[in-house]
């Protein structure tokens, strides 16, 4: 598989909603 690793996830807020079956990405999530 294509694996989206943690270096590429840096500083984004990665939001998992397992019930609704979706993932969200928001830039500048750490500050």
């Amino acid at each position, binding site marked *: *598989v*294509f694996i989206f690793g*943690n*270096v590429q996830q840096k500083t984004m807020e990665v939001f*998992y909603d397992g019930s609704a079956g979706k993932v969200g990405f*928001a830039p500048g999530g*750490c500050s």
Partner: protein
Amino acid sequence: KVAESHHSHSIEVSSLLPSASCIPSTKVLSNNDDKASLKVVHKHGPCSKLSQDEASAAPTHTEILLQDQSRVKSIHSRLSNSKTSGGKDVKVTDSTTIPAKDGSTVGSGNYIVTVGLGTPKKDLSLIFDTGSDITWTQCQPCARFCYKQKEQIFDPSQSTSYTNISCSSSICNSLTSATGNTPGCASSACVYGIQYGDSSFSVGFFGTEKLTLTSTDAFNNIYFGCGQNNQGLFGGSAGLLGLGRDKLSVVSQTAQKYNKIFSYCLPSSSSSTGFLTFGGSASKNAKFTPLSTISAGPSFYGLDFTGISVGGKKLAISASVFSTAGAIIDSGTVITRLPPAAYSALRASFRNLMSKYPMTKALSILDTCYDFSSYTTISVPKIGFSFSSGIEVDIDATGILYASSISQVCLAFAGNNDATD
């Protein structure tokens, strides 16, 4: 230290390496009825108390990348061998009965959070991992072996809320899907075993315990592994926090309160901090795409990527390149692995746009590296991903490059060997 233009990032070269001291995030972590937030730190950075432990000295970048490759190999193996896993029972005293190809490598590029376990509560720093399911910690009396960890090893005999799971319990059998291994039995107690792709492993008793996330959020009777034989590259942490999609993951076990919602932000460098939040809502500027399911590995979080752009230009990659391979998002894999055709297109475009900078030798799996020692500022093309839902997400400047030193800074992507990987 990054200036934005439309299609590129302008980066101060000195900011490519982490600071020697911890510079915590300015974000205030709020907790309320709906959510619980924990601080995230890099395992080997100055913000981690583990990094001060001489027994958990930071690995080199080459070691980190080799361990990352072990994790990726094991994920591929786990997916391709999913129908044949779980063939042997596990025993507390015998790690060799665990199939080496199952589970996923812990690796070194990992992030940790501190949670409380037991009554009274003991604080434990656990690697958090969306690519695995079982939460475990080292337990006294360490019947076979415990590696050196920074905090005191958890002792279930000193906790009033610990209970062993019986091997006749149906939940014991659930370990097969969560670990890839058939559980064992010792004096009627359920025995779990998980082995990671780099040969790290944990074997021990499967039990329940009180898990405290924050001062206001605690859960009784959370299933977890009480490790009696733990060996490998856990770097001074006390174990793992499994955030996968299996019913034994912490996400599933706390679903009644948080509805399987969690989020995190991984810090820009090992000298800053991020967060892991259970529950709550997404930022207003979040873009959403559906989760997909990889049939051979349903506990992974699948994503439907459709394209890549570099410097504002979408690369000519057939959508079938992405759909053939499938994709997952994993907090425990360091470097993104692309299908071979996608990686070669990304690399060619990136090298073209970076042609004014001198290239240097490869760093392990990273084959596009530059010597920036003659520069104070560099311009790096933006890289973005598109998804089947139609959204496009630009990754941060800190996610494009991996710096070993200023004279060896590499494109932080690698290709898979096989288009179907």
